[in-house]
């Protein structure tokens, strides 16, 4: 992935959006826009490679280490390449009570991968996450911005089939 260095730049629309995000914060406090811009970057580049993080730092006029610090603290930023669809399933108590362990074990079997892995065809990455604040609607997972709730084995099959098309 090191050969992408020169190619890392936002689309014009995202660049405009990033500038608008920076302007939301008081003068001199542009570093506040770091996570909004990292989310925007992950939307375009799928994961936070060092080149992407360096690019974010350049947009904010801060040092790259400041971006690495943030990227390694918060769980939403992918520090390794991921598949087309990142399935982030909840492993926390309330989802477990609703049968989460069985449903997500079915999900792993169906995809033939363990947590943290990506399918050979590059379509799916499984990521285990903590509580998604949807406990009464569990078991749940999210794929990008979409929440999938009240999951059972059959629903999981349907979702995977739909996304595999």
């Amino acid at each position: 992935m090191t050969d992408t260095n020169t190619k890392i730049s936002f689309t014009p629309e995202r660049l405009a959006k990033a500038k608008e995000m920076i302007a939301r914060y008081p003068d001199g406090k542009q570093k506040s826009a770091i996570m909004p811009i990292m989310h925007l970057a992950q939307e375009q580049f799928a994961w936070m490679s060092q080149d992407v993080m360096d690019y974010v730092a350049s947009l904010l006029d801060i040092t790259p280490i400041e971006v690495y610090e943030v990227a390694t603290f918060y769980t939403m930023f992918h520090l390794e390449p991921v598949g087309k669809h990142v399935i982030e399933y909840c492993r926390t108590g309330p989802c477990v009570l609703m049968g989460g362990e069985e449903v997500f074990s079915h999900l792993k079997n169906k995809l033939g991968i363990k947590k943290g892995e990506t399918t050979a065809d590059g379509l799916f990455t499984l990521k285990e996450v903590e509580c998604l604040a949807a406990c009464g609607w569990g078991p749940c997972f999210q794929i990008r911005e979409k929440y999938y709730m009240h999951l059972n084995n059959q629903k999981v099959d349907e979702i995977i089939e739909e996304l595999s098309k």
Partner: protein
Amino acid sequence: MATKILTEHISTPGIETFEVYRKKGGYTAVEKAIKKMTPDEVVEEVKKSGVRGRGGAGFPMGMKWSFLAKPEGIPRYLVCNADESEPGTFKDHYLMKNMPHLLIEGMIISSYALGANKSFIYVRGELMYVIRILEKAIEEAKAAGFLGKNILGSGYDLELVVHPGGGAYICGEETALLESLEGKRGNPRNKPPFPAVKGLYQSPTVVNNVESIATVSWIINNGGEAYAAVGVGKSTGTKLISASGHIKNPGVYEITLGLSCDEFLNSDEYCGGVRAGHRLKAVVAGGSSVPIVPGALFLKTANGEDRLMSYESLSDGGFVSGTMLGSGGFIAFDETACIVRNTWNFSRFYEHESCGQCSPCREGTGWMQKVLNRIEHGKGNMSDIDLLVDVSKKIEGNTICPLGDAAAWPVASAIRHFRDEFEWHIKHPLEATKPGAVYMGDGVLV
């Protein structure tokens, strides 16, 4: 019919739009506050209401507002804590996605009261779809003249910024949240100075939970005294309870504080009882960090009095026999739930979410998780039980922020009330590790 202060119109089709929200009386409280009241009068009404912080700590909101330092020439900030991450809690998620304008309206009035011209709503990053809903609502409110420059011709300016988090439970702690909002890792700050003096960008700052801010419109429309008349004692008003686990109707319910726990659990208006064919074993009443109690102690205090859904009644008996209302994250466990496994699960959560700044929490959460893991997987020793209690005591009260306490309490309380279940796991490892095996103690079930 119980008073619905927040959710009266939540099922109205289109209530997420400015138009419908306005038709249902929305933004009249902004008009009243900005045109007819001084900021101090707004603070006074909120004080009179007695409303307590709904994020979990339960500190009186009006009092928190009155601590805000007001030095000349330095901006003041209001930050809404929408980083809802406490396991069992999903009320703010529910409120924001369905009624974004209720939060926006509350933010405008609260910002006016505090003299803030730029306010932030810090939403956990996973809820990006909710962030888009809030941003749309802000655009609508702006177009209608309720936000931006010179609101309603009053000369008061306010800009609202929705800020996404990045996935970190600790950022629900207010000083960690402020660090995060400044673009840094979410390490809680030492206090003092408190945010009211030095908060966001070292300026005076108030941080309030979504639900707390959402109550402000009703308080302004109806008066603080009317709010205080709802509820019981110092638990004034209503509270959103997120109900999950082994109940018939999981979901979010607005209850009048003081409702009996029995009615909340068993009435069809709320949880509808434990799921059919099962019996109640245990309850976490206020989010994963509050002490877990056996079902019987949730329904009645140690003195045999009916337990009520209020700050005071739930904590009656202290940590010996009581618990806490917390964030209102109610989780019910029936006889199929294994307390050891659940405690291990929660411990794993706190280990994962510890920021690592304070040694007792960084080391202790990992230690508790490992010991619970070996008990759960049939490799525990009898001395492990007291070891867990010992570690939990060494974390509790010895950290900068309350995450340490939040990690210690579930472990200590599970052992306090379900010690025989831990012992059974250790004495009968082969039986305890069979799939679906659960200890059936005597007299625990309700």
